């Protein structure tokens, strides 16, 4: 399958990424090559196979929903964050 510029633009949007103008042609070529390769999956007959794959046969394990918190962890994260004040992360203005 061939990836085109419109599809790359869509993927950039989904990925919150911007591919530089001078890199687009190369990445389109690389992605197309990879996707064409993985198209070989369609050669395999998987009609009767369950699409839900889990690493254990028991499914996802659940735990009790007990609240817990660490003051040290939250303070450490805030103090090393790119921009924080008091107990908040500071971000550019969202509402004009």
């Amino acid at each position, binding site marked *: 399958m061939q990836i085109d510029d419109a599809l*790359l633009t869509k*993927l950039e949007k989904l*990925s*919150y990424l911007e591919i530089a103008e001078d890199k687009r042609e190369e990445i389109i070529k690389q*992605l197309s*090559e990879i996707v064409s390769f993985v198209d070989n999956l369609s050669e395999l007959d998987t009609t009767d196979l369950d699409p839900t794959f889990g690493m254990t046969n028991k499914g*996802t394990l659940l735990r009790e929903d007990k609240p817990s918190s660490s003051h040290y962890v939250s303070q450490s994260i805030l103090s090393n*964050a790119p921009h924080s004040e008091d107990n908040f992360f500071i971000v550019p203005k969202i509402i004009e």
Partner: protein
Amino acid sequence: MITLKEALSLSADEIKAFREELKSEIEAKKELNAYVGMEESGEGIPLLIKDNIQVKDWSVTGGSKILQGYISPYDATVIINLKAKGLAPFGRANMDEFAMGSTTESSYYGKTLNPINTDCVPGGSSGGSAAAVAGGIAIAALGSDTGGSIRPPAAFCGIVGMKPTYGRVSRYGLGAYASSLDQIGPLTQNVEDAAILYDMIAGYDPKDSTSVDMDYAPVSTALNPERKLRIAVLPHYLKDASADIQKAYVDTIEVLKAQGHEIIEAELLDAKYDISAYYVTATAEASTNLARYDGIRYGTRAKGDNLKETFVKSRSLGFGEEVKRRILLGNFVLSSGYYDAYYVKAQKVRRLIKQDFEKVFETADLILSPVAPNTANKIGELQDPMKMYLSDMYTISINLAGLPALSLPVGIAKNGMPVGLQLIAPAFDEQTLFDGALGLENALKG
């Protein structure tokens, strides 16, 4: 370099002296670029830690620019476990950015060199860990293996590398790449050290929902290299391997026979399907896992006029090319219109791959397989992403099926580079894996 087993019998004073000595040796081999940080955490036997495993108060960056400035607020469960056994995190090992690579060339900190031949790569993504152990500047190291990030580096550098069964070792505190495939494992100088380190890090952890809650029996105290096993070999798998690897494989089969093991032939799905199922699954999971890096809460933020621009700029400037490629690819296979044909299909194929292994293990105790199609690649040789993905052909099926495997050196190729082969065991049968590997290691020593 002393082994981990030997180090465990040192006195506190001896360990202290050894740590100082080690620092100067690391400094003397700086050109390898195996260490990207000389952080220490506690006193004890020094253990090198891959740059994607959390150690409290360390800068832990996954070899990425986007995590510069991040300081870990906690210890990963494996770190807590090994501190309790007298080991101490000592230095950060270089790696491919976010463990996405097979050469350790994509790190923000620059490439790591192979100590056996510095024109070659050490393999990836745990290349710093492997190069340090092989270069005599680490007793042992922790790495992580998502599609082979421990085993090919071990093979390329001539050391032992082991990937545990999925669920055996807690992933709590491991920087997530592809969560259904990632496992932390040991890189060591020999099989026994690998068993010792594996025992230290393995076990149930309630903080990792995929950690398996079952009784844990230590393997290193029960090692039996004399066990006679039935080992499956994969003749058809060899067609894509170089002459050196093929010869090592054939020679190793003879060694195994001479040890008294029974050799049987088996067949697995063509590895081209493994590569496809892997790159669909891993990139899908990576695109989700790496969505958290937005420049807001940790790491590096780029300046944008509004929030969206801040996200996009932070990510575009913070991630390297291979990481971007995998995020784009992951979002492609998960996007509406392509999800069924790629992601769902890959999950079904994953089941086929797992069943395939289970069938072989109905009659075999272990499987012998190549680790990589060739010895260590030259630096720059795997620039083309598709070519790099193909180089993972012998390791990724094991991650897709969640099995344990161990790579050990079996000889030296004509070009002077080490050749490693891997043994693969049924899920949760690490004991047989280590027994077989230790027996083979002993037999090769002669």
